């Protein structure tokens, strides 16, 4: 039997269904199970909520609404838009190591606007992934209040990372 009709189901802030864990001989806490849309629906704009952690590496969920502060890192990061419409501004910092020295991991918030040369602008929708290159400052903009964004960040744990596992996971 050939299957000919398919409908791909993506989640969104307005329409998501969280899965579940059926326990046989285990504990739900062992799975650190959360949902990025549920988290973003309860987050403040640009709060970086950790949804995955493996030693120094983290995944962060961000609710993109309005304009963010500027950030930089001592390493690459990647932003995957899971919902909405998000614009990304990039600036090549004149002196990136004075803000994020090599030994400092994770996103660092800039005090004010970045000093450097404009690198470019990226406009992204659901499924689009952008490189946030080392040495660059970046900010997100979600100008459409009807298309609030949800971003999944691939990065390292840093001073902006917020862990609140008991609030976001099945217990």
């Amino acid at each position, binding site marked *: 039997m*050939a*299957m000919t009709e*398919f*409908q*791909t*189901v*993506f*989640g969104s802030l307005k329409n*998501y*269904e*969280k*899965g*579940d*864990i*059926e*326990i*046989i*001989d*285990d*504990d739900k*806490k*062992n*799975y*650190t*199970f*959360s*949902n*990025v*849309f*549920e988290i973003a629906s309860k987050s403040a704009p640009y709060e970086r909520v950790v*949804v*995955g*952690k*493996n030693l120094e*590496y983290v*995944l962060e969920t961000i609710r993109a609404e309005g304009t963010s502060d500027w950030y930089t890192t001592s390493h*690459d*990061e*990647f932003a*995957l838009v899971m919902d909405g419409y998000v614009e990304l501004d*990039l600036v*090549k910092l004149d002196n990136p190591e004075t803000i994020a020295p090599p030994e400092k991991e994770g996103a660092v918030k800039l005090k004010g606007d970045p000093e450097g*040369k*404009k*690198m*470019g*602008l*990226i*406009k*992204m*929708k*659901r*499924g*689009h*992934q952008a*490189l946030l290159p080392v040495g660059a400052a970046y900010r997100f903009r979600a100008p459409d209040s009807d298309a609030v964004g949800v971003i*999944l960040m*691939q990065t*390292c744990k840093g001073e902006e990372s917020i862990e609140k596992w*008991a609030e976001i996971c099945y217990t």
Partner: protein
Amino acid sequence: MAASEVEVSASPVSNETGYRSFELGEFGFARDEYFVYISWTAKGQKLSHTMSADAFLRATMRCVAWGFFYGWLNFDDIFGTQQLYGRVKFYAGRFSPAFHDQGLDHEEIFETPRAMATFKEMLADWTNDGYDPFAAPDETGLSWIGKKNGSNEEAIGREREVCRRMPGLPGDAPLRTDESGRPVNRAFADVPQDQPEVHAEPGFEGEVHAHNLFGYLSRSDVTWNPSVSSIVKQSLFCPTTEEYILPVKHGNDRMEWFIQLSDQIDWEIEDKETGRPRAKVIMKAGDVSIMPADIRHQGFSKKRSMLLVWENGNPDLPAMYEKGELPVNLSGEF
């Protein structure tokens, strides 16, 4: 030593089925029209295990494509492989209490090139024309059944796609397009293919970069075969498209994270040592979950779905877990 330089122990072609049989150490492997037979000796007794040839070839294909991956690749409750990084352990009955408790299990360690060469030759010999062990059953049909009938080198010779930083960057892995022979899969025909608008200032064309990851995934021509699509130090995004059943029960040697990007996968979770069922994890779009380091898991995906597997590629992790230096999950954090 490369796998291609290793001599593989294989029988002449069978007059009855057209297939060759193989030996690796004390393990024997044979196939006929429907089944694969794995044999070994324990306590002076010859033992054997019978599997569907389809299931065996799907699992063997992943061993080859993943380079035996991380941890344990259980073909089923009896036979599997364990990654020892440079070497690989084959086992039969080791994680089946019925065999193990009676001393009837068998384990043997091989240099990886020898194990890889044997599996590659086995795949080449046992894969019939028209059968693709990477494809969903709905796509590849039943040509795995029967006596030997041709081969499908193109299907089993695919290289795993691994980027250095991100696909599409200059000098990095290419994006998938119609022109490069990567059409949208039938199950993702409704996935938007538009690319992000990238406006790079002069001089920054090679650094200002984005692409449609969901579109990229929609053009995957394999199932249960993660590529590597973005890298932060040793943090690896390994997205993959899944349909039908993960051909192995994967027991990892580290914590592994899953992020369900689309649709649904049901994961059956078993104890890594005994195979006893522990839980069923039902993941829907947007869900995030650990696969702890002390379990084995097998996924079931009714519709082709997009799964982001997130790995920490630190090579020191298996030894750290073995010494008990790292927790098997994050439950201690909350």
